[in-house]
């Protein structure tokens, strides 16, 4: 039985080659093998959305993908969006609109929003709520998150 697979994954435009056991979840691989701890793990059964990453540009639960399946694919995590000194416009908007409190769910929401705003640059409040309905947040009641997404959309349209 082959217990270890060599994989090559591009994460945030950097190519990583690693050997993984097939059962290792992509969330654990990103966090513990690559040290990209911005992706958070809240439930490991695909409901909370904290571990959302972009898998070839589409939002996906990294707790419901095996790392071995990411071989040859392109992953974007929150670390790939912006830096402290150069925030992505969505991150800027979350800062300005107080779109986070404890910040645990935030990375998964940011990654969900990236493709959403690409596909829908001027969303209604209802569409925003629908778009983030797969991301649970226990702190904010979502209102400032919705405001932040609206603000981000404005920023990005400019």
């Amino acid at each position: 039985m082959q217990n270890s697979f060599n994989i090559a994954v591009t994460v945030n435009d950097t190519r990583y080659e690693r050997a993984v056991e097939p059962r290792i979840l992509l969330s654990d691989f990103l966090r513990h093998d690559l040290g990209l701890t911005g992706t958070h793990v809240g439930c490991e059964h695909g409901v909370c959305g904290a571990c959302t990453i972009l898998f070839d540009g589409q939002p996906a639960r990294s707790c419901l993908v095996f790392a071995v399946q990411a071989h040859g694919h392109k992953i974007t995590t929150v670390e790939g969006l912006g830096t402290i000194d150069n925030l992505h416009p969505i991150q800027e908007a979350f800062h300005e609109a107080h779109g986070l409190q404890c910040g645990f769910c935030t990375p998964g929401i940011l990654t969900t929003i990236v493709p959403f705003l690409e596909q829908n640059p001027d969303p209604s409040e209802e569409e925003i709520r629908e778009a983030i309905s797969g991301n649970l947040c226990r702190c904010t009641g979502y209102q400032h998150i919705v405001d932040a997404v609206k603000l981000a959309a404005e920023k990005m349209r400019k």
Partner: protein
Amino acid sequence: MTKKFIGKRVKRNEDPRLLTGQALFVDDVEIPGMLHAAFLRSDYAHARLLSIDVSAARQRPGVVAVFTAEDMGEDWQPGPPLVSPPPTAKDVIFHSRRQVPLVKDKVRHAGEAIAVVIAESRYIAEDAVEDILVELEPLEAVSDLEKSLQEGSTLVHDDLESNLAAHLIQKKGDYEAAREKADLVITRRIVTDRGAAAAMENRGIVAHWDEKSQHLTVWDTTQAPIPIRNGLAARLGLSANQVRVIAPFVGGGFGPKMMMFYPEEMLIPWASMKLSRPIKWIEDRRENFYATTQERGQNHDVELALSRDGHILGLKDVFLHDTGAYDPYGLTIPLNTQCHLMGPYDIENFTSEVSVVFTNKTLVTPVRGAGRPQGIFIIERLLDIAAKELGIDQVEIRKRNLIPPEAFPYEHKIIDQAFAPLVLDSGNYWPVMKKALDMIGYDQFVKEEQPRLRAEGKYVGIGITPFIESTGVGPYEGARVTVEASGKVFVATGVGTQGQGHFTTFAQIVAEQLGVAVSDVRIVTGDTTEFHWGTGTFASRGAVVAGNAIHASASIVRQKVLKLACKILETPEEELELECGLVRVADTPHKSISLGELALLANPLRGAVEPGTEPGLEATAYFGPQYGATAFGTHAMIIEIDPETMMIAIKRYITVEDCGTVLNPLILEGQIHGGVSMGIGNAYYEKLHFDENGQLLNASFADYLIPSATEMPRIEVGHVETTSPLNELGTKGVGEAGTIPVPALFSQAIENALYNRELEILETPLSPNRLFELLVNEEKSR
């Protein structure tokens, strides 16, 4: 004095790190050589442990150790009591039974830990858990509160005569006499059930015992790092200085991260010392549902005595409180319930008798609200029933009973959760309620809109619920404020932070005193090496107690700055001002010196120092309130119900909050929004379903439904400020406020929406299914 920083919508200092994935949470800690723990937990809620065989687990490659209760030897000890039992007062019964690190003789709730595996990876640790052979003899479980107190019930703790954990009666005035005079006495059974706090981050601990330096470092998702440090040191036989506890960024607390000690919290550091290896344990979501504390199960038998004009003459409440399998948190929750049963109302005669009950369920400790929502639910439900029976408007009956502004401080003549007399420090309630009525357009809705919508066949209802929240309790917090040579200010305080924005509000308090930019104030919370006096973040007290301690420290530093600058600038202190990181002469602004330069001068390398002076621009101060400050608020809601599907749509949601001085409205609104969302969960979505065997039937986020963005309405927030006389900043807490009135408000609005049904809601949480059942019963009883 107009404020420059306090009360402003300042963006948060902590955000950039959180937004870019650069903030450290416990599970982000990586240490070379670190091992991983997994627990074997009981599938049964009540069972005798007959035997356990861990030999196969120990042999699995990658497993370093497996520990059972037996293996702990003398180190196996129940946890310390977190809140002291009540002082021996007359007629108080309290049986303290504390949680154990690993089950030794019998399991008392499903999910209780039986053994821990330490392995090279979490995956291997979980494999090895499955290798353990454990023989459990299932016992009849105690799940229902009433049944658990019946004669002959199975005992959760065999050494007790019954499942009664505690008993307490509080009296004020003479209820029986008041009842005699009443025109109306309402008698009801009202039930509240359990929910989970469900912080997005589960609990986690990393413990690192360094043999060579004889030092233990623990990263813990706790709300109270200092008591954890002190408790660990005591239990592990170390000096407190050998233990450093760090609560880094924590992904939500909401109460349960304030339990001391969780079994894992003691075991992981203990195992790290045994093995001389760093060990990480991260709770998974399933464990969180079984092993993290929960709240809100109570059965109330209540009576409200009123006069014909709707004045409350007296309230009597006999209730059972579910504490789960153990009671380390003492009487905090039921006392909070008692202190909120009278709500914001002037009630002279009151009797409340609580029996705290052991059950074979997960431990109960405070969850955002902490007994308060139950108290408010009871009184508000009773007032709605009274309003209907007496034919008085639901707002009017409340208005007639509110404590008037001249009655403050209002002495309630019962004891609070700290066993101190309950006093409401300040308040002016009617203007707050009035504001909520105005914001929602109460009169217009009731007179015009609702009849019109009803004519269209719509079921729309309105609710309006006032409430109080006791906040900002003692004993104390402290802080150290230091002006550094860079001109930036460093602040250390002992409380932990779980998203409340302390790095910003605390910085605003300092900026107000020292005239520096908020972003130039660096705050450290929850690291015992930085500050080691204090208790923790709970009871909506962070901004009140730690905030005022920081204010006190910053004020002393301000005096030191002025004293030194007065010498250097050769100007009297009264003529100096602190602005933009400088001390300058008010009418000659070019005559100035920066705080950084002053800090250097205050810490000279050579030269004589005046006797009696202290080096540096630094001060440590403490704040302990005389008693807790009580906030007030009112929520109002318009709801529409599809009476065929029981699906709801919240059309408007208003909150008006009086929490004294507002430090940062942006953060305050966020706290309220979040509180309301938990309240909405409590009211209509979230319920932990335990069966009669004490088995939890919905231990996942697929079945335990916390509100998502599509269920949440937009919340309109209004403020009124009645400053608290108990602290210099005039603040009151707000962290739990959003949650407290929501179940009461929901019941009121749902009854109002289903106007053509004789519906009386006497329970929370509700659900579409439960509402359907209530309506079916109503139809049958017609």
